[in-house]
């Protein structure tokens, strides 16, 4: 069975500082990995995904994640965070078809302080 471990439940960081949110997965099949973001009192939105190809994937708002097969990791990074990045971030791995069910990690709350 697939599983996802997010190593930090909360990450406090000052504005304009770099941040890394850690994610490790276990999977016995081909891996498809996702990061979702949940702003307060909202549903989840896709931030970025790795399906194949380049191991470094980027989002439109400056986040990036690197797929590392040997370390079974998919850590999320941003070189300079903003107050508006305050949210909960979920790492997820996808089951193969049919269904393509997502297995989520427990989430990491990113708190950006001024």
């Amino acid at each position, binding site marked *: 069975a697939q599983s996802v471990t997010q190593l930090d439940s909360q990450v406090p960081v000052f504005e304009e500082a770099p941040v890394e949110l850690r994610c490790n997965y276990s999977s016995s099949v081909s891996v498809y990995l996702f990061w979702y973001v949940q702003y307060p009192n909202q549903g989840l939105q896709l931030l970025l995904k790795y399906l194949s190809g380049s191991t470094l994937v980027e989002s439109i708002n400056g986040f990036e994640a690197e797929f590392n097969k040997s370390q079974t990791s998919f850590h999320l990074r941003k070189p300079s965070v903003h107050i508006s990045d305050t949210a909960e971030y*979920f790492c997820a791995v996808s089951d193969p078809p049919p269904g393509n*069910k997502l297995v989520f990690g427990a989430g990491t709350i990113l708190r950006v302080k001024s």
Partner: protein
Amino acid sequence: NAGVTQTPKFRILKIGQSMTLQCTQDMNHNYMYWYRQDPGMGLKLIYYSVGAGITDKGEVPNGYNVSRSTTEDFPLRLELAAPSQTSVYFCASRDSGAYDEQFFGPGTRLTVL
């Protein structure tokens, strides 16, 4: 497009009551999902559907039922509410392409007292 809509936004139930959480999507997606979110636990899949008339259990289906009579609607039924079902419920949908993005609704916050 409204995307994925859920009603109600909030609900308080007494133990043993029943209710239906509504989910509708207007993107003509075949795949739909129900999750529950508990603090520090991430999201757990309750049920999912790969098309009208086809549903299957997820990780935590006990105490819930679903139906999928149309492409647009995927209601979740709680028959005998229990305090353990206090949670935030999210509905999601996605297109049929392999590994397409799941689109989430805004959620229903349910409290069972």
